[in-house]
């Protein structure tokens, strides 16, 4: 399924002999690329001219036909927000600052001078975010979904704040623990997959339960609690205490609603 030529030893030898990297795509990869450039995402990355150039590169190739796949629970995409992807990427690459108009709610809109730091894609939301420093508010750390960006224009950068942004956005690693009752051993793989973003590792095992340790960043707290609520009795959060209290509060409030 993988071409024989795509082997490190051959690729390194070609580089050694010719001083050039081998960069010819096999017909499988050409066919896959042709399939990719016909996906919905393609228009957010390429202009019509780029697409023509790629199409002529792939002219004799038959596109891979990805059939017989059903996709479930893919979040609804905000298509218009994806059009910001390349302009924002180019602004960061060209080291430009931005004057950014964004909203927090339908009625609250702001304009700020922005040092754009990174673009982040959240897989489970199918959504892009701009990570930036708000220069109009004392370099405040900001994370704005593209769907909340109304417009922007680029301005000349006065000061490179990349290192500072790196320091400001650096999050500490926090640890939590959870237990799985052995009655749910058959569900163990699903439980661990649900929490896979937090790297669960076995902490200890006793007769009735298994305890796992996980790590998370403070900005992921909401997502972590959502995953534990999703798992219900299958995984019980044991530490840290303030998150356990939030879990308890959520169940008490839920029962109040139902009563």
């Amino acid at each position: 399924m993988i071409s024989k030529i795509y082997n490190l030893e051959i690729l390194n030898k070609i580089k050694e002999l010719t001083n050039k990297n081998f960069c010819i795509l096999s017909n499988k990869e050409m066919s896959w690329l042709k399939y990719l450039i016909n996906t919905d995402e393609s228009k957010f990355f390429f202009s019509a001219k780029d697409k023509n150039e790629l199409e002529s590169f792939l002219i004799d190739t038959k596109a891979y036909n990805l059939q017989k796949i059903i996709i479930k629970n893919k979040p609804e995409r905000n298509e218009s927000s994806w059009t910001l992807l390349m302009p924002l990427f180019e602004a960061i690459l060209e080291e430009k600052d931005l004057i950014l108009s964004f909203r927090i709610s339908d009625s609250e809109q702001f304009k700020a001078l922005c040092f754009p730091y990174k673009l982040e894609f959240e897989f489970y939301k199918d959504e892009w975010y701009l990570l930036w420093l708000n220069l109009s508010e004392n370099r405040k750390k900001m994370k704005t979904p593209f769907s909340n960006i109304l417009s922007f224009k680029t301005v000349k950068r006065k000061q490179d704040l990349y290192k500072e942004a790196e320091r400001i956005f650096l999050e500490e690693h926090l640890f939590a623990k959870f237990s799985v009752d052995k009655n749910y051993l058959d569900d163990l793989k699903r439980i661990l997959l649900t929490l896979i973003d937090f790297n669960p590792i076995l902490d200890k095992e006793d007769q009735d339960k298994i305890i796992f340790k996980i790590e998370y960043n403070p900005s992921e707290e909401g997502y972590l609690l959502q995953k534990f609520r999703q798992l219900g009795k299958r995984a019980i959060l044991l530490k840290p205490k303030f998150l356990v209290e939030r879990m308890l509060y959520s169940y008490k409030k839920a029962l109040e609603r139902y009563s």
Partner: protein
Amino acid sequence: MPKEDRQKILKFLKLIFLEKGMNSKESLIKFFGSIGSLESTLRKIRKIKLKSENSPSIGLKSKQYLYNSDLVLDEYLGILISGQIKKTETMRYSKIIEFLMKDNLSIDEITDKLNDSLCQDKNSYIDSRTVRNYINVLINEGFIEKTKDKRYTRYKLKKGLDSLTDNLLIKLYLFVDFFSNAGLLVTRSLIIRYLLEKSLDSVKIKRIKNIICYKHSKPIRVLDELNILYILSLLENKKNFLLELTLLPKHKDKALKKIKVIPQLFLFDYHLARWYLITEGTTKRILVDRILELKKITKEFDILINSIESRLNKLKKSWLVEEDAKEKEIVIEFYFDSSTSSKNFILNRVKKEAKNAKIEIIDKNSFILKMITRDINEIKPWVRSFGSSAQVLEPRSLRDSLIEEFTDLETIYESVISETNNDI
């Protein structure tokens, strides 16, 4: 490395990844058949480490194997491209490509050039028939093509990525990087990305990597991808066929299971980034991450297109994979405290995740969702994930079972807190 070795390494990584730190050598021998087979797999992983900067690192914690990595995709690619190959073959393929980079050549010309540069004596003479075999591999894989040149058949290299402009290559890198991280199937995108990385200036690549990051894309699913690609290639055929699958037990203390099925479709669940194989036979669906080994059995059947279409329609109306349970209407009231936050996050999340539902706004603090689904157990984890922000109104059975669960969970979490207090 032969394909089976590659599969064994992926199997090993999957086993120790899925049961985070719970697999000792003894428990793994059961899945590998013998200690020899397990140890040779471990040796091969160490060998990859010598060749590739991106190779999986296996840890041991209290005698349990552990694979925890932030670079699963790169390490997977490392496994794919670090296979063993004979030195003579490496040299001959590389030389042929070197010659063709300079000129279009016939088989005889390539043979002469190979013999001039590689053969020290008569015993190591390469004949044109052998060269033709190499050329055929390169033609079949799409790297070279025939060209008619003054009555001779000569061969030339096809256009590579370096024929595209730098500006387009950067965009293509971003595009393929997106599909390497967030695509459903990523293997071929990873290979293209690897070749693009080599074609672009490394400083530029480093800068691009610093600009874009992907979160929570569950790259571990890549360990099943060769199985999926293989079954998909079989599904392209006009005839159906039987597959014998060896399935991992639900937990490591149980035995492996063998079943025979006719594969029909794949289903991908975005919530857990998990693949299901929809089948005909003793079972209707199989989680792909349970497949340890698979074998095609040559028996072939006509494809029943109507049956596939009818299953597709049924699956469209389910929350996940349930096809047979009776359709039910679910009514849920969602709440949002508009005084404490400036945006209705709950409404946004529900609109994004329950695409086929009808939503009726009650006031600025609540709304009602109505949707048709089949098995209520499939939708329960999603409803539960909203905690106190959702209240099921219909059906009664789902409402009652959630009340029962929340009551139990309240007791459990109260005891966790009281135990924590006692610890202090």
